[in-house]
């Protein structure tokens, strides 16, 4: 499907105590089914705001967002979100956290054994079968994030939205989860929108990188096509000229064209 997610002339203005704050303006983006999109930009550029708009957690002040031709009116399980800080419920085990989502989405059509099997499959997909009955505070940050991903995938969403899912993890764990995510996407053919500030992550994972200008009133600056064949291997890519070019293009955008944030901060 060519026009799976459509974002048309979307703007977002917040009412603050100091008056109106324009976070986003004139965002136009079309996402194909099965595509992996990375949203990248300096902090405060409204990447997460845009993700929340697709999730339906906030409503746009201008423009419209469509999924399969229908307007996005509020949050829903067909647009699952992997939150930045995993957001697992601490009083439920990993299994129960996922089960809560599975039950909500499939509970009306399927019996308990089927729901449990779905939950088990989701937890196995992220390689955490051994930790299924542990509580979130008993497992590491990387494992929590994997449970968060499993919860989102278990709902079989049309779009998987990820808000800096690996931002809080150390470099080694992050690399491991990125590889896992690539395999999962391969398997499930998921449509993914991921917010990130990591250039390597964006180039490694995505089909297109949406680069955003600095806020306030941020919008899409450039869109980069990443034409690298899949499956991708991070080690072979490191010397691939196409990969290096993509990386350079993003870096150039962030640190030359949109560098003024850095100067202001300094």
């Amino acid at each position, binding site marked *: 499907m060519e026009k799976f997610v459509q974002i048309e002339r979307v703007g977002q203005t917040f009412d603050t105590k100091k008056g109106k704050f324009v976070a986003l303006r004139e965002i136009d983006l079309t996402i194909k089914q099965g595509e992996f999109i990375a949203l990248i930009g300096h902090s405060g550029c409204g990447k997460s705001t845009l993700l929340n708009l697709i*999730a339906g*957690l906030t409503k746009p002040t201008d423009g419209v967002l469509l999924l399969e031709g229908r307007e996005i009116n*509020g*949050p*829903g*399980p067909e*647009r*699952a*979100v992997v*939150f930045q*800080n*995993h*957001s697992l*419920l*601490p*009083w*439920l085990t990993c299994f129960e956290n996922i089960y*809560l*989502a599975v039950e*909500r*989405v499939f509970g009306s059509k399927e019996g308990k054994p089927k729901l449990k099997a779905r939950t088990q499959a989701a937890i196995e997909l992220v390689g955490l079968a051994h930790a299924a009955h542990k*509580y979130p*505070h008993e497992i590491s*940050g990387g494992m929590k994030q994997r449970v968060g991903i499993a919860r989102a995938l278990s*709902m079989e969403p049309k779009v998987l939205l990820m808000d800096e899912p690996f931002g*809080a993890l150390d470099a080694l764990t992050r690399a491991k989860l990125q590889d896992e995510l690539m395999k999962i996407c391969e398997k499930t053919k998921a449509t993914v929108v991921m917010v990130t500030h990591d250039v390597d992550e964006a180039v490694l994972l995505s089909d297109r990188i949406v680069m955003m200008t600095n806020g306030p009133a941020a919008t899409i600056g450039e869109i980069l096509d990443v034409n690298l064949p899949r499956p991708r291997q991070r080690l072979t890519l490191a010397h691939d000229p196409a990969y290096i070019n993509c990386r350079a293009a993003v870096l150039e955008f962030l640190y030359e064209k949109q560098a003024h944030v850095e100067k202001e901060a300094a």
Partner: protein
Amino acid sequence: MSTMTMNGEFGAKKPIDRSITTSKPVAEAVAEPVKETKMENAAAVAVGTPIGEKLGALGRAVLPPVLGLLILLGIWYVATHKGGSIPGPAQTWDAAVALFSDPFYRNGPNDQGIGWNVLSSLQRVGIGFGFAALVGIPLGFILGRSAFLAAMVNPIISLLRPVSPLAWLPIGLLVFKKADPAATYTIFICSIWPMIMNTAQGVQRVPQDYLNVARVLALSEWKVVTKILFPAVLPYMLTGIRLSIGTAWLVIVAAEMLTGGVGIGFWVWDEWNNLKVEHIIIAIFVIGIVGLILEQALILLAKKLTKESS
């Protein structure tokens, strides 16, 4: 964001606990606290502490409170040993032995054993408190969920909360026409405020992340309450319960002094009329000990429940 801080706490808990337990018994660990490896060694030493040190630690834990009680007894003895209207420790002890040798006698409605008096006070607190929980906790949930209702009800609560519960006693007597339900009703009034306020605060402080999860999953209101709100609010509710049981136990003594019947408060007043001052002192200790037990039991319950739910 709040889950992040929660994780920070979870993560930080263990090392902090360890440094406290290890740096105490081993003096060297304090002298050189910079090196992480030294701390690890200290942990190893702490596991294999000899019995002498364990006894020492026990002594350090038990000695101060025992010493404090002894000093209290000493002051009491010195203050009363020249005679006077207040009995000394020995006299009170003798009276207590006699009293507790038969705590459950009944000689008519106004002369019953101390056991019955304590139990009937506890019963009143239990009933008043139970009703307060039944009304206060759901009300707290509603006020926490609806900003409009909260704005409507909060001024009323602020106005009524500082009123001494005893001021409500005449109204209770008027409505119920009997002393016993009036006393229970006083307990209800004083217990309900902490329960409403703590529950409402707990509901307002449920991390936005959890509510976002609920929104993305589009959970039903029932699931939101049972799977997210209730577990998240539970610690706040338990704090409310603990605060109100403390107040309830304070208030029941005063209420019973006014209403009469059977109960520890009435008993104090009765013994004052009989001029048995040693019994009044015993009653003070009994009230204190029962209050302490109630509080500790609730702290224990809170720990158990929050451990299961966190």
